[in-house]
């Protein structure tokens, strides 16, 4: 499904993209057409194959360029990997653009391809902004919103005004020679060159990994100030059209007023669309196959609508993405969420590549270059200096109010990170040549500023960050403990504020959260999603899944699903006994698990909804089974999987699943849960003091020895604590390794956790029969010597490996073979 969606979206994107990009070569197309007309009368018979270039010309060229951009990105990445990582990707792409542009120039003697502003603003920019806002770390963003707004609004206005006025001053002083340009035009130019470009900033800062506050400040500023620049640009553009004399106080006031209307109106519109989108995804349960598309369509609509109303389109799509992400992600199916994530990244990265490439290509053109040393150098200088002044002054003011002041080093990086990019170029290219005589000079200056900032500052950014020892981003490995502690902090801080009797930041945050929880979530979220959206839970869930996936992929890497199968003995009565409880969970699991990444939702639904009660006492049941119930053999056969070949891939437009054996899915699930359980053992030991445990351990051991079974296996459940576990139940899969000890309070090494160690040793007679059973993968025997080491289970691996030398992988393997099984008693002892 994802790939089909990508294709769809890509196609839409391309078709739209077409018309504008190719304007430059329309003359070419006409020629083609006319030559064809000339040819037609000469046709004497039915042509079998004709060359219909002009039919496909436009889409063809676009696709070829997209393809070239893809190749360019690929090569840039490769070069960066192998040769040098000095130049950031964006800079490399621009340089590559120079080369490609040179080739085109050489062939055509003119630049036939260039970045047209409409193409940029309507087909390349929206998805980049949508991507940035959709993945915006909301908490960070909103807690720094004040600072971001100040930088974005005041900083940008300051930059625009200062650059414009200074240039004008220098012009009046005669530094630029003879130019046909006035104060308003300088201000217009200042406003378009003022904004820090989100595309360039993301591209450079992403590679540098500065700390998250610094990143959000620069990034948030660059996102929001685009809106501001566009507004300023429009205002000054209108002023230029009006002409100097006709501007009076009323007009200026209208300009300022329109600034606020445009900026806040755009943001508001974006929020409205976000609400629409959230409501929409509430009811797309039955058309999950296209719900991912809504995110793009509605996001784009918010952009276009804002543009139509002459509100800030960038701010609109920004707020649409920021506000909808939480609800959309909760409402949509997990698969659709993944689809959106990937598709949005594909589109944004693609656009970004194309933009930088074309920024380079555009430069190779004799038409646009007008050189004026004074103007260009002074612009570069002012842009650089006023950025620094602006940042330092604003930060100085902000630091008086900030709880955590922004450090000087961070300020340096912020000012140095004032990269200009394609937005500035797009705006410059949109200037009206009739009104602004020096348009080409402005374009060339903008291009030079862009190259200077993206390439030179981009290259030096990394060394600078290293040299200044800027605080880098902490590893963002999601850790449950940290998240828990963070939540504790939130509550503690709020409580202390309450005690101090102050309405502070935490008070607002908390009350907003409560309000959001109560009303907004209620309105915008599915009831079911609401129930399970808790952040901590989702992290827990993710960790679980990661483990499960690692486990399964580890098994698969080794060849087949035999590792699941081999553990049948332990699972069997599990199933039999609790089949009924599982019944409600089964349909969920039955869905497609073949694709583990997308199967997430299925597990979740078990974890959070069905809450089946499962006895932990697998092992004891096993024993009983072995003794008196040979029915198990029967059961086993029933539940054996067909080998993988039997999974038929069906074609369907709207569903995409593989008809997989439901048992297998369930087994995989149980298996992973068991492995978690196993690895968890040590942590739960924490319940009781050390000595008790050691004691238990010894007891355990002796029991094991004495409890020898006829076939030479021991059961680890002779402990007197046994009664504790008999009948103790857990009510959810996720909780299932946790509860039992809690019932007693005294921590015990729970014999019920031993099955994975013990089970294989039982080597139930039927196991041998399985091996002869043709319905089992024939390779089983062949595989038995593979050591199944969980090398890739990184998170819990240390515990699992160490704690259970009877690692489940190992045991799964071991249990397959009869000879190994016979050595089990010794093995067992050795382990203990």
């Amino acid at each position, binding site marked *: 499904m994802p790939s089909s969606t990508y294709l769809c979206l890509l196609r839409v994107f391309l078709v739209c993209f077409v018309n504008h990009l190719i304007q430059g070569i329309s003359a070419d197309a006409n020629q083609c057409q006319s030559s064809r007309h000339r040819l037609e009368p000469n046709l004497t018979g039915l042509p079998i194959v004709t060359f219909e270039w002009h039919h496909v010309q436009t889409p063809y060229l676009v696709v070829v360029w997209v393809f070239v951009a893809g190749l360019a990105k690929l090569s840039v990445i490769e070069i960066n990997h192998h040769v040098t990582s000095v130049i950031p990707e964006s800079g490399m792409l621009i340089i590559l653009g120079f080369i490609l542009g040179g080739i085109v120039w050489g062939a055509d003697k003119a630049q036939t391809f260039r970045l047209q502003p409409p193409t940029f603003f309507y087909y390349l920019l929206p998805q980049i902004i949508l991507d940035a806002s959709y993945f915006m770390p909301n908490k960070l963003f909103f807690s720094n919103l004040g600072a971001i707004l100040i930088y974005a609004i005041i900083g940008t206005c300051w930059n625009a005004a200062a650059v414009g006025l200074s240039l004008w001053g220098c012009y009046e002083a005669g530094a630029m020679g003879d130019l046909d340009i006035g104060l308003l035009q300088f201000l217009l130019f200042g406003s378009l060159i003022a904004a820090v470009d989100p595309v360039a900033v993301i591209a450079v800062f992403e590679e540098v990994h500065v700390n998250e506050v610094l990143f959000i400040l620069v990034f948030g500023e660059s996102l929001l100030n685009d809106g501001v620049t566009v507004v300023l640009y429009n205002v000054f553009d209108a002023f230029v059209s009006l002409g100097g004399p006709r501007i009076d106080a009323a007009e200026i006031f209208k300009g300022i007023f329109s600034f606020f209307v445009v900026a806040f109106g755009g943001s508001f519109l974006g929020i409205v669309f976000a609400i629409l989108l959230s409501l929409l995804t509430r009811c797309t349960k039955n058309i999950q196959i296209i719900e991912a598309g809504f995110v793009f369509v509605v996001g784009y609509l918010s952009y276009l609508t804002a543009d139509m109303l002459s509100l800030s389109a960038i701010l609109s799509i920004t707020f649409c993405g920021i506000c909808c992400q939480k609800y959309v992600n909760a409402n949509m199916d997990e698969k659709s969420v993944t689809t959106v994530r990937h598709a949005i990244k594909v589109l944004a990265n693609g656009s970004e590549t194309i933009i930088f490439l074309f920024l380079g290509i555009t430069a190779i053109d004799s038409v646009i270059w007008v050189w004026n040393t004074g103007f260009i150098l002074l612009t570069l200088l002012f842009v650089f200096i006023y950025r620094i002044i602006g940042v330092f002054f604003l930060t100085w003011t902000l630091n008086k109010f900030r*709880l955590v002041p922004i450090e000087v080093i961070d300020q340096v990086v912020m000012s140095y990170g004032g990269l200009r990019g394609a937005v500035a170029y797009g705006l410059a290219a949109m200037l009206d040549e009739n009104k602004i005589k020096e348009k080409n000079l402005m374009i060339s200056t903008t291009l030079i500023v862009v190259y200077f900032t993206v390439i030179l500052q981009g290259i030096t950014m990394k060394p600078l960050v290293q040299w200044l020892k800027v605080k880098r981003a902490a590893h963002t490995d999601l850790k449950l403990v940290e998240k828990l502690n963070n939540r504790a902090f939130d509550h503690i801080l709020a409580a*202390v504020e309450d005690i101090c*009797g102050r309405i502070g930041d935490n008070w607002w945050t908390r009350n907003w959260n409560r309000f959001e929880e109560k009303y907004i979530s209620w309105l915008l979220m599915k009831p079911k999603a609401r129930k399970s*959206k808790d952040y901590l839970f989702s992290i827990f869930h993710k960790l679980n899944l990661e483990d499960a996936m690692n486990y399964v992929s580890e098994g698969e890497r080794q060849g087949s699903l035999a590792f699941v199968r081999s553990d049948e003995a332990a699972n069997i009565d599990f199933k039999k006994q609790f089949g009924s409880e599982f019944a409600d969970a089964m349909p969920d699991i039955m869905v497609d698990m073949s694709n583990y990444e997308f199967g997430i939702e299925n597990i979740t639904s078990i974890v959070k909804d069905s809450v089946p009660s499962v006895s932990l006492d697998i092992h004891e049941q096993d024993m009983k089974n072995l003794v008196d119930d040979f029915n198990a053999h029967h059961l086993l056969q029933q539940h054996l999987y067909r080998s993988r070949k039997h999974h038929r891939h069906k074609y369907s437009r709207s569903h995409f699943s593989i008809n997989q054996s439901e048992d297998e899915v369930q087994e995989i699930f149980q298996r992973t849960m068991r492995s978690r359980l196993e690895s968890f053992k040590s942590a739960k*030991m*924490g319940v009781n003091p050390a000595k008790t445990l050691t004691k238990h351990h010894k007891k355990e051991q002796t029991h094991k020895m004495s409890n020898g079974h006829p076939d030479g296996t021991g059961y680890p459940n002779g402990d007197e604590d046994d009664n504790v576990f008999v009948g103790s139940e857990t009510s959810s899969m996720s909780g299932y390794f946790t*509860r039992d000890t*809690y019932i007693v309070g005294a921590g015990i090494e729970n014999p019920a956790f031993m099955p994975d160690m013990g089970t294989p040793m039982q080597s139930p007679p039927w196991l041998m029969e399985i091996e002869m059973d043709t319905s089992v993968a024939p390779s089983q025997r062949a595989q038995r010597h593979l050591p199944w080491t969980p090398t890739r289970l990184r998170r819990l691996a240390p515990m699992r490996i160490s*704690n259970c030398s009877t690692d489940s992988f190992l045991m799964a393997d071991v249990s397959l073979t009869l000879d190994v099984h016979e050595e089990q008693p010794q093995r067992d002892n050795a382990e203990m």
Partner: protein
Amino acid sequence: MGGSQSGRVHVFQDLADKTGFSIEQVRNLHDRFMYLTKDEDTLRREHFDSISYLAFNPIRREIIDAFFDKRNLGQNEVGCLQEIEFEEFLTILAFFRPLKPHATEEEIENIRRAKLRFLFNMHDTDNDGIITLDEYRLVVEKLLFSYETIDSENAKAISDAAMLEVASVTMGQMDPDEFYEGITFEHFLQILKGLEIETKMHIRFLDTTTVQCLKKE
């Protein structure tokens, strides 16, 4: 009258020196203290109940306990006080004071330790130097219950998983018969290494002499 006023200023100055608050902050907090205690000299648990917003806090019990916990008061004693005076009140609140602008590395490290110790004590209810799974679960459960969307089973599972994480981070390889008893303070420090506590665990104290803050209750 004038004499008592200046005497009070003197006392405040002392307290300000001791706790690092500014004298305005001390004065504001004193007002607040008197408001909470209804003009008594000591603060008791039930006084906290009058703070209406606190009622929503899922871990208010732990937080209030922290105010009466002798361990947090700089005395090397264990146990709980029944009532605290203004100075103790300030001492506790001083844990939430923002960093001084030009603190040295060592000072930061000390403050960090103190803050984490405070947090640790909040978890370690029985004061044996170890946060056992029991204790941890209790807190986690409360934290999660505020959302009423997670049942206690899941809360337990989450606390267990968190504990497991701690174990795997701090202990590394464990022998088969080893088990993790609980989080010691050293481990606690270790796992929260990445956490910028100096930027997390503090609030803004009122500097000005306005008392509008008191009117909201």
